[in-house]
């Protein structure tokens, strides 16, 4: 079995992000009879975004369980099942609904191992699609990864490619801790290379998605692709941007992030979630508190969602979260001469 490291020279097939997740589910269901999937409409309907399509037919109602619309009971029952010898995977149709299950995830599942003195294991995966861009309004569009990072005991995964989604989900299912796996709903149809043979991606290992020398962007989820596009465009002008994807926020690969910031001397953090209290602040603080700090040539800049609920109207929705233009501007600001940079800092609005 391969572990990690992406795409070799050999040409491999391309499948979508949703298909990659489905493959991971299927392989883990086949591998371990203790694994089962439950959630609202995951059965014959195939899941709200079609991710579990076909699994019900293959594995039947004992392994693919349609539930009532009861997020707290779903998450709590999954925690109870995980405590007692099975390995549940839960799908919550929109990550905004996780707030309905937050006590069970953050107060029960996350704390049990520590609170009970290490006597239990809670092998539980909570999958849920996150992010804006579907016109579904404020209660179906949020990105709340930071919320879950704030509960010790949880692991938090935000995959940015089909390859990562599959390898990380398989690792999540085999992990003996509760894992919050935040799928990116706008990426479900995006395709990318995924090898036929089995592989796992370890948690806590960032990937440098693009090497560069002038500036580091740390981004996760849907923002990674957007940042790579920006980096590609700037490359034509001779600006060399490195893009680092932590892939798992808990555990976090601090070493790769600080090493990259130390190397380039400039750091932009990009996330779709709102800026205040977002995980970007944590990464900025991490770098500011590291050996990379004295090597920085410019302030650390965050490009994040504005501090607003996600609006409906397409033009508003698109601009509520980072755009290529805002990312590019941040990169240019940090690379500009000192006086101009001072101006951009003064003019930066929250």
């Amino acid at each position, binding site marked *: 079995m391969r572990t990690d490291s992406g795409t070799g020279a050999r040409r491999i097939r391309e499948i979508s992000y949703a298909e990659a997740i489905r493959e991971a589910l299927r392989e883990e269901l086949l591998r371990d009879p*203790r694994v*089962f999937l439950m959630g609202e409409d995951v059965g014959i309907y195939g899941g709200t975004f079609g991710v579990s399509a076909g699994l019900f037919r293959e594995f039947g109602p*004992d392994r693919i*369980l349609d*539930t*009532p619309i*009861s997020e*707290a*009971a*779903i*998450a*709590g*029952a*999954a*925690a*109870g*099942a*995980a*405590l*007692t*010898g*099975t390995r*549940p995977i839960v799908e919550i149709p929109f990550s905004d609904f996780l707030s309905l299950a937050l*006590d*069970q995830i953050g*107060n*029960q599942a996350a704390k*049990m*191992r*520590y*609170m*009970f*003195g*290490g*006597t*239990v*294991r*809670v092998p539980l995966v909570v999958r849920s699609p996150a992010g804006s861009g579907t016109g579904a309004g404020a209660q179906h569009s949020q990105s709340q990864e930071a919320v879950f990072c704030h509960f*010790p*005991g949880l*692991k938090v995964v935000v995959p940015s490619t089909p390859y990562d989604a599959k390898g990380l989900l398989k690792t999540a299912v085999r992990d*003996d*801790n509760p894992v919050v796996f935040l799928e990116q709903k706008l990426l479900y149809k995006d395709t990318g290379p995924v090898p036929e043979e089995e592989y796992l991606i370890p948690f806590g290992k960032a990937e440098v998605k693009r090497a560069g020398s002038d500036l580091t962007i740390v981004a996760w989820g849907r923002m990674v692709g957007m940042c790579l596009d920006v980096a590609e465009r700037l490359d034509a002008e001779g600006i060399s941007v490195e893009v680092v994807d932590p892939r798992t926020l808990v555990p976090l690969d601090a070493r790769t992030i600080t090493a990259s910031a130390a190397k380039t001397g400039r750091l932009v953090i990009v996330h779709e979630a709102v800026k205040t209290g977002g995980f970007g602040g944590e990464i900025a603080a991490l770098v500011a508190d590291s050996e990379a700090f004295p090597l920085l040539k410019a302030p650390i800049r965050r490009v994040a969602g504005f501090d607003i609920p996600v609006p409906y109207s397409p033009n508003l929705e698109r601009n509520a979260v980072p755009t290529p233009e805002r990312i590019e501007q941040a990169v240019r600001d940090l690379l500009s001469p000192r006086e101009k940079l001072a101006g951009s800092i003064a003019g930066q609005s929250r």
Partner: protein
Amino acid sequence: MIALQPENSTEAASASAPSAGPRPGYPEPLLEDLYRRMLRIRLFEEEIQYHMSRGRIHGTTHLYVGEEAVAAGAAANLSDLDYITSTHRCHGHAIAKGSDLASLAAEMFGKRSGVCGGKGGSMHLADPARGNLGGTGIVGGGIPIAVGAALSIRRLGQDRAVVCFFGDGAMNEGTFHESVNLAAVWKLPVLFLCENNLYGVSTHVRRSTNVQDLSLRAAAYGIPGRNVDGMDVLEVYRAVGEALSHVKKKGPLLLVAQTYRFLGHSRSDSNVYRTQEEIDVWKKKDPILRFRRLLIARGDLSEGRISEIDEEVRDEVDSAFRYAQACEEPGLEDLLRDVYAD
């Protein structure tokens, strides 16, 4: 030293006469077992109260004194393989389910040898080896967990059941509704066992719930609902036994045990919301004294045998608390341990 004080008044004796009607003949070891389980809980908690009042145990605690018949009568139907989920008032459940008293006492003192390594404390006693999936500080928080344990039982094809303990207050949490419904549609082997002690902290169930017979709520989920006198350990034992055979064959059942906590909700409760008269009336139904009188009156156990058990349990509890106080506290090397499983 604190000891169980038998009430001597004749009024108390008549008020707590054995339940009417014929009783099935129970074997002596079972009767001893029920008595012992209740007494362990009572003496253990009296020790907690004693040490807490002297500042030797920190934090808060929710004592179960008065409610012992529920945990004891229920747990006597269970093996270590059967599961329970518990509440913030979890000492009685943990003791009845068979956890080692010394480890429980050590947990109360925050010691490394505690059942949770000193990291859980009074509200979080868990003992997976005994099937105790833990107490929780969140009212209603354990109810979905019970459903999940039953789901594992189903998935793994085990001949086990889950007893889900919760209070009257938890019945107004959303998790109660969601979980009972889920267990009912999936016909999972969970006994939902409500300990109705009449108060959610200070609020009487009359003021929190528009249905006074809480077992009626079972109808909303299409499952049987029953009541039992939670001050009568034999009645609880019988009712839980019957409920469990239903639960294993046909799915969940709601059993409401009418009980009462003799002490305050927690350490800080000064009982301003209820009268001494009310408390006294219930104390006359003290499940331990009542059972002891019954055993003697029926000749099930001799006074001499009961005194022997009293002594044995007294010694067991004393030795548990001596052990607990002598144990080491966890060190800083334990602080960051066990957040995650490897």
